[in-house]
Every structure is written in structure tokens, then in C-alpha cells.
């Protein structure tokens, strides 16, 4: 299966169908049992997560892995990767102050736009679960990704919030030409946004196509009614 550049691709399937596992494999989290992963023509199988991240393939976690004792803002900034993160340059402030200032501004903007306004200064472990999800997503946007693997961004947040989260993601796609690859349980929302869908079932590719095709596919229906 492949994800076209600049597309919004959805990945759906009943629980335990291996959606997240697929993400784990792509993002270098697990080595694949078989097969290869290619990114823009070159093989990225078996690279370390950090290397894959720095290639621009960025994933979010289904249940957020934040840095609990850091503030929300710092959580975002860690993802950004400023110049001051090298020991040598971190000592002299002037090396990184300006870049840092920019990043902070950016962080504030992103936080605002994903709907994290006002909590930036809280300690990450103190914010609500819905906010944590948003932080997880926001964090993945900090480092101007090429491909975004979003794992259930709308889980546990209100319908409207989910709506404008997706709107924002789409806007990003338009602005920066990010390719989106989204796992989502709430198909009702998802289908309005994606232009191509893969359906996994028990680790196998069950069906694929445009939303309409997939929804009309009865194998998919069975699968969903099945569980």
C-alpha cells in the first residue's frame, strides 16, 4: 500500500486490526517481520525512530506520551529541536536566543490554532485528557513535517473540537503541502476529509479506495458488524 504525496489518506479498521502496529513499523518503532518501508523513493526500513523523525516522517501516539513534569509549552519546544540543543552551542545564549524566540512564537501560534489557548504555561501532567491529545498533535506539527502519521487525533475530544482540529490539519496540508495519514475510529468525521481510505482487518488489507467506494464495500460492513 502507498500514500500519495500531498494526499489525505485514512486508515480505518476494527480494534486490533493492526493500525497502530503499521504506524509503529513505519516510524521505526518496531522492525517489520517482512517487507520494506520506502519514503520518497529511498528505503527507511530499520532506521531508528529519531532518524525517521528527522526525515520528516512524524507520528503521534494514540495515548499521548507527554513529558509530564514539563510545561505544555516546553513539550512543544522539545519537538521543535532548536539550535541550543547541542551542548556546545547551548552554553552561549546568543547562539540560540533568537531561534528560541521564534520557536516560542510558533509554539504559541500552533497551540492557539489547535485549541490549546491558555494552558501553555501549565505543567503537562495537570491538563485534561482532551488537551493531552491536542498537545500530542500540536507537538507533531512543531518540526514542519513532510508526512504526518496521526493516530486517532479525535479520540476523546468533543465533536466541534474534532471538527476544527481536522480543519486545521487540512489547512496545514494546503499551506505546507503536508501529507496526512490518519487513523481514526470516528469514521463519520474522517470521511468528510480524506480522499483515500485503507481498511485493515486482522492485520490484512481488507479494502481500499475513495470513501464512497469503501463505505459501499460490504466486506467492510461485515468486518465492522463482525466485531
Amino acid at each position, binding site marked *: 500500500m502507498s500514500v500519495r504525496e500531498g494526499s489525505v489518506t485514512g486508515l480505518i479498521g476494527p480494534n486490533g486490526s493492526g493500525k497502530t502496529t503499521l504506524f509503529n513499523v513505519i516510524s521505526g*518503532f518496531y*522492525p517489520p517481520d517482512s517487507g520494506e518501508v520506502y519514503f520518497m523513493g529511498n528505503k527507511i526500513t*530499520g532506521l*531508528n*525512530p529519531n532518524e525517521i523523525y528527522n526525515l520528516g516522517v512524524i507520528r503521534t501516539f494514540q495515548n499521548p506520551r507527554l513529558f509530564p513534569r514539563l510545561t505544555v509549552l516546553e513539550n512543544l519546544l522539545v519537538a521543535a529541536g532548536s539550535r541550543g540543543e547541542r551542548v556546545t552551542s547551548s552554553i552561549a545564549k546568543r547562539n540560540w536566543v533568537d531561534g528560541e524566540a521564534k520557536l516560542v512564537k510558533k509554539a504559541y501560534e500552533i497551540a492557539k490554532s489547535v485549541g490549546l489557548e491558555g494552558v501553555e504555561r501549565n505543567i503537562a501532567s495537570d491538563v485534561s485528557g482532551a488537551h493531552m491529545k491536542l498537545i500530542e498533535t500540536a507537538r507533531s506539527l512543531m518540526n514542519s513535517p513532510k508526512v504526518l502519521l496521526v493516530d486517532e487525533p479525535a479520540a476523546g475530544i468533543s465533536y466541534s473540537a474534532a471538527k476544527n482540529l481536522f480543519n486545521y490539519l487540512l489547512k496545514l496540508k494546503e499551506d505546507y503541502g503536508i501529507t496526512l495519514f490518519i487513523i481514526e475510529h470516528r469514521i463519520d468525521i474522517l470521511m468528510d476529509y480524506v480522499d483515500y481510505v485503507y481498511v485493515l482487518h486482522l492485520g490484512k488489507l481488507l479494502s481500499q479506495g475513495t470513501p464512497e467506494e469503501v463505505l459501499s464495500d460490504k466486506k467492510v460492513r461485515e468486518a465492522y458488524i463482525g466485531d
Partner: protein
Amino acid sequence: MGLIDLNVIVNTIWIGLIYSLMAIPLTISYKVTRVLNFAHTSLITVGAYVAVILSLVYPSLFSNIFLALVVSFFAGSVVAILNHKLVYRRLMDKEASPVILMIASLGSWIFLKYLIYSIISVVSKAIKKDLYFAVPNFNYTFNLNFLGVSNPAFAYSLVLGLSLVAFTFLIFYKTSFGKAMRAVADNPQLAQISGISDESVMTLTWLLSGGLAAVSGVFWAMFSYASPEFADSLVLQVFAACVIGGISSISLTIFGGFIIAGAENILMTILYTLVGLDLSFRPFLSFLTLLIVILVRPPAGAAGGLPYRLKLRRRESKWTS
């Protein structure tokens, strides 16, 4: 066996048994309470001294090993439980992190150590006996001839020690208390929900592990001697035994105890006779063994973070390059 002397084997078994007895309670208490208990050494010392002093002061009564063992078991339990109630429990209620608990245990270790010092300095003045280097005055009524070595103290340690280990296994795997302990160890929250009272389990755990530690101290005193420092100079070996067992499995901990004892005795003998390695390298070998075990085969729970565990080989090659 020409190379390895019989005494070496007996020592290995004896010391290994004692190491295991010292390490098991440490493992149990860590599993259940998540406290890496430095005060463990003090518990061992307390046990040893209770038995020694009693057997010296009331020889009529406490030259009987079983009595002495029982008393020091409860002495150890009391100290452990007090320590838990006064320090660990309060810290846990304040949601202190494990490392804080560890440092707190360091503090109570220092306190208890010098408390013991003070007590024995007073007592030894009173009874006009040297307690800084003391051997218990037990009378051994039976003896058994093991591999042609007949040493009543060894016989007693072997029989009693093994039965204690069995007893521990029984408690841990056959009783409801054991089940509760394991439940709490695996998942405190879940245990809480399923109606197992965290606190009572912990108290019982301290009772058990404190008692076992104390008893192991008595065994040491039977094997060698009691001094205010002996437990401190053993603690690293004991920790090593636990770590080889991944501080999680009792049977593995016992295995670790014997591994360390083997390294200190059998391996030492071999290297000494073949390479002529100095005897003063004995502690060296136990740590070397530990390092090798940890690095070559990280014990359960000791393995590194997820990415490393999954990609060990390639990572190493990267590292060396």
C-alpha cells in the same frame, strides 16, 4: 575432583544459601513496596545480634537455635514494620518518588547502624563480653556428614535454610497472602480496585521480609561471626544476587545468590590454581560476574528502553563504529 577442594564446594553451598536467604527478602520487599531498602543490612545485623546476645546472656534458654531463630525473626519484623510505618508509609502518602524512598531508607540505614553500635557498646560493657566480634553460643544437638565434611553448624544451616526457602515459596505461591502480594506487586491500582488492601499487604510483606533478613543474619553468625559491619560488607554481593534475579523472581534470586557464591569460591579457586590470581581479587570476581551477567544477558526487567531492546545488535554495531 583434584582441582576443586571439598571445602570450596561446601563453602559455595553454605555461602550461596546465606546470600540467597539475604537476597530473597530484599527482592520481595522491592517487588511489593517498590522500596530499594538500604536498611536491609541493618535488619540482617539486628537479627544476628539478637540471637548472639540472647545466646550469650541466657544460654540455658537460647542456646537452642530454633528459639533464637524465632525471636530474631520477630525482632527483625518489628524493626522493619516500624521503619515502614514511621518512614515509608508517610512518604508514600505524600506521593514520594521511589528514589526519595531509597534515600529515606539510606537515612534509616545510617540511623539504625549507629543505634546498633550504641546498643552493643552498652551491652558489651554490661556483660563484659566482646560483642564487636561475636559468635553465637548455640549447642548443636545433631550433625550430618555431608560429602565427608561433618560440621554441625553447616548441617543446621543447610537443613533450616532449605526449609526456610521452601517456607517462603509456600507463602508466596500457595497462600492467599502470597497471591495478594503478587497482585500488589504486579499492579497496585488494580489490586486496590479488586479489594486487596494495599497497606495490610505491605505490612505483612515487611513482617515477612524483615523476619527473613534477620534470620539470614543469624545464619551468617553461625557460619562466621557477627560484627556491626559484616552486613555492610556483604550488601553489595546481596544486591548483586538480587540484580541477577532481576529483583523480580525469587527462584532467579536464589540462582543469583549461588552464582555469586560460586564466583567467589569455585571460580576463585580455578583462577588461583591455574593463573595464580591473587586471593585479594575475590570481591573483584563477584562484581565481574555481575557485570557479565547484566551486559551479556540482561535479566528480566533489566533490559533497556524499548528501541534498544528491539534493535540490540544493530545498535551495538552503530555504537562501536
